[in-house]
């Protein structure tokens, strides 16, 4: 019995080996750690962990996530949306509103990666051994392989085996060295696909470390911020930390990393399919911007929905847009508010915002609604429609007076009504103004648009892309490469002076593809070896066990 040098990859579920444990409490601890490690390294455990990850992801799909949709989460907590307050409290308790930041999720990831590491270390070592010096195993059961063929040749046995070896070598099979087994009956043993399949699987799993490193480094080094810029605004926006409406700098991102370029939005093109069949579906969003670098050079460019602009390594994405009416409030001839408001869309197709004039005495606040398309009907009254295009804009507002309470945190587009008293309301077309009495006039000189940009720097995106490519590069051979082995013997028959060559093969995957490859190999071998002049008896037996009348092998080995 020869030793099998080219061992199969380690078992997915290694048997738990019992070792004699050290006595005492230390021994108990060591034994526990060892058992935990053993448990963690089993494939079955990895499966369970994948299942846990799946369940957590499922929960996070169904439950709204606070980092994504904070408003929905607030509504769920208040009980106005979703399953109600009791369930919401339970969701909060298990931390499912931020599932991907929860300790449970991070612990699952940690365990999964530990399990992966524990599984990959011995496998990588074994693979390295096979890849460096593989010794395909001999077989003592030549006749019992899936594919067996016999034929006769007039060549000497050594010559036949050498021909076979050369043929297999040309076809890139790994061969067992003929000197490996002194004294044993000469046999050609070859294998193919082991290194590729296992290597692919290893590459696939190892590339998850690349992805992990890419994500973590990206979190630390990256930056992303949001800002709204008004169309045609003469004041350009400068890329600095304070200029953003909101930003998420990574821990290793410093204020010096800002690029300090300036951006102006020259024009924002937006259009819709006006055919009522398509319900005002948008057809175009395009920002025309001018970017001025700190050195004074500037260029004009566009930012589109799928077409971000890269400036000094920072990507500018166009993510949001809205109408920006200019609202002027005058009190006793004194201008107390003059500026563009960045209105936000509501579900009804009306745009909402607020104008705040703390300079007035007392404070004046306007709660505003813009109807983009409100054409005047025959009676001279505006018709409110849900159409998004601004062919006949109408600005509706309610006036409040009192204390705006700006010292407390509040949204740009909402008023804190606690300190305010409603005074009256009005409606304005562009270019008009209205006198609200007590010396207060409100005017609506023009309507523009604003665009919400995201400016971000994600330095690890190329690394992540490389990781993703590695995942695919590993996955394909891991799933499609098939491991197969081949053996060949040659015995001389002294009575006829001929040599009987036996070729046997076995595929661990894709037996049908191997059958074709095997037939081709045997045919090539027979072509290269001199055939006897008159084949005695019936035609040489090329026996294919898969075409055996007996039931296929897979049925026999069923549990």
């Amino acid at each position, binding site marked *: 019995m020869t030793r099998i040098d080219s061992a199969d990859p380690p078992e997915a579920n290694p048997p738990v080996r019992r070792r004699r444990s050290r006595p005492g409490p230390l021994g108990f601890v060591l034994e526990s750690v060892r058992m935990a490690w053993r448990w963690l390294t089993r494939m079955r455990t990895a499966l369970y962990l994948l299942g846990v990850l799946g369940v957590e*992801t499922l929960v996070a799909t169904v439950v709204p996530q606070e980092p994504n949709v904070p408003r929905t989460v607030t509504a769920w907590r208040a009980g106005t949306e979703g399953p109600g307050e009791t369930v919401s409290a339970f969701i909060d308790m298990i931390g499912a509103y931020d599932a991907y930041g929860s300790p449970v999720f991070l612990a699952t990831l940690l365990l999964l990666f530990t399990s992966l590491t524990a599984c990959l270390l011995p496998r990588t070592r074994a693979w390295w051994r096979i890849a460096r010096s593989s010794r395909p195993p001999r077989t003592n059961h030549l006749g019992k392989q899936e594919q067996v063929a016999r034929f006769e040749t007039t060549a000497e046995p050594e010559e036949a085996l050498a021909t076979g070896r050369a043929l297999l070598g040309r076809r890139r099979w790994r061969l067992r060295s003929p000197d490996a087994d002194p004294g044993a009956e000469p046999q050609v043993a070859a294998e193919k696909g082991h290194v590729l399949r296992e290597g692919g699987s290893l590459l696939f799993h190892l590339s998850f470390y690349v992805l992990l490193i890419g994500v973590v480094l990206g979190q630390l080094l990256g930056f992303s911020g949001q800002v709204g810029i008004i169309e045609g605004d003469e004041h350009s926006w400068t890329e600095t930390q304070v200029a953003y409406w909101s930003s998420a700098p990574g821990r290793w991102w410093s204020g010096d990393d800002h690029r300090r370029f300036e951006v102006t939005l020259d024009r924002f093109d937006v259009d819709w399919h006006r055919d009522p069949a398509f319900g005002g579906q948008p057809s175009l969003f395009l920002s025309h911007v001018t970017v001025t670098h700190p050195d004074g050079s500037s260029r004009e460019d566009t930012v589109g929905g799928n*077409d971000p602009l890269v400036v000094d390594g920072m990507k500018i994405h166009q993510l949001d847009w809205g109408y920006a009416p200019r609202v002027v409030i005058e009190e006793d001839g004194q201008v107390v508010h003059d500026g563009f408001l960045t209105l936000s869309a509501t579900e009804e197709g009306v745009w909402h915002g607020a104008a705040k004039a703390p300079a007035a005495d007392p404070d004046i606040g306007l709660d505003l609604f813009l109807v983009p398309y409100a054409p005047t009907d025959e009676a001279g009254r505006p018709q409110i429609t849900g159409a998004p295009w601004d062919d006949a804009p109408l600005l509706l507002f309610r006036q409040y007076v009192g204390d705006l309470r700006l010292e407390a945190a509040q949204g740009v587009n909402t008023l804190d009504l606690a300190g305010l008293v409603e005074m009256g309301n009005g409606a304005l077309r562009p270019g008009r103004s209205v006198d609200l009495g007590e010396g207060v006039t409100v005017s609506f000189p023009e309507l523009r648009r604003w665009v919400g940009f995201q400016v971000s720097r994600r330095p690890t995106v190329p690394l992540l892309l490389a990781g993703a490519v590695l995942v695919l590069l590993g996955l394909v051979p891991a*799933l499609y490469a098939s491991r197969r082995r081949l053996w060949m013997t040659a015995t001389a028959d002294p009575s006829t002076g001929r040599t009987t060559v036996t070729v046997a093969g076995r595929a661990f995957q894709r037996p049908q593809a191997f059958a074709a490859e095997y037939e081709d190999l045997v045919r090539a071998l027979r072509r290269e070896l001199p055939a006897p002049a008159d084949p005695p008896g019936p035609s040489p037996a090329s026996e294919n066990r898969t075409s055996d009348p007996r039931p296929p092998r897979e049925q026999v080995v069923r549990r």
Partner: protein
Amino acid sequence: MTLAELSKLLFSPVTLLLYTTSMLAYLYAMAFTKVDRSADEAALAGNRARILGSALAVAGVAAHVAHILTRSIASGRWPRGNMFEFSSIMALTVVLGGLVILQWRMRRAEVMGFVLLGALITLGLSLLVYAEPAPLAPILDSWWRAIHVSAISLAAGIFTMGFVFNALHLLRDTAERRVAARTEAFGGSTVGAAFAGTPTDEDHDQLVDTVAERANPDPDALHDALHDDAYRLALRDALADRWLGVRFPWRIALGSIVVVTLFSLTFQRTSATLAMPLITLAIVGLAWWAVPYLPSASTLDSLAYRTIVFAFPIWTFAVITGAIWAEQSWGRYWGWDPKETSAFLTWVAYAGYLHARATRGMRGRGASWFGIVAFCVLMFTYFVVNLLITGLHSYAGL
């Protein structure tokens, strides 16, 4: 008739009818191909039915492709914009995959009937989310979209085939195991096992009839045929066994009604809610009738594995291209949006299936259950997340 109307007509009824008749022909072929192995194969009714089924399936594919082309001309873009178009392409993938891979490459035409059934169900679901051809939102106007959506629909179609095989494997495996247990109990007699459960006169008559029909005088062949038929009867009978006082098909039906009702709630169509349990019952009955004619359980298992192994890298690629497109379009490669999350969940589920296949003690039935769960996750990703959970993939606003 406008182009859009022609396109709709080509889809329903033309494509649907062609696929349905093709499915029936394939099912007929499955049941009657193996009547007599010694006779001239081409002359058998079963083989003629298979050729008819293939012809109808090819005609169905042609009509389907014509529908997609006319629809794209009508809307002036490639049909990858909404759920109906996605489902339609997914079903086309199922039929094409079945014809090319299963029938042409693997020579496994006997399960084609069920593959077409899977395609028909996908198409039926697509009708529930039917939308007239419309222009595309500008945010969807990207090369990555074409690649991402194509890969997703391709993978989803092949996964659907995999699900069909997994389900058939579990069914056939259950039947085979029970027959094996009974045969054991009857001292190795399959004929005994065939009548172990409920030996009705009808069953017996059928067995005698099929044996008597044979004009082959060879006693060995007769014995073989008798054995085959007894095994088939035993398989079907084993599935009709009582379990906890409920007959097995009823158990499947009850479970299916629960699942299907959930599905119907997702679509919120009353007609669907009423029709679906009936359709499910019909499918369960069909599966029960077909179980003796299916390939062996291990063959079905291997077919399921090979299909899923084919689709998994495509799905992986699709998720990666999705991330690339998200980076280009939304300014981040991964944002835990419900759709991204559930696509990842589907990936994890199918990775679980592949790992289960490689884990000792989970091969076979365990792995198949993983495959079934993974497909449910895929359907959840597709329908529930799209229709009930709002995220960026709902394409509302910019």
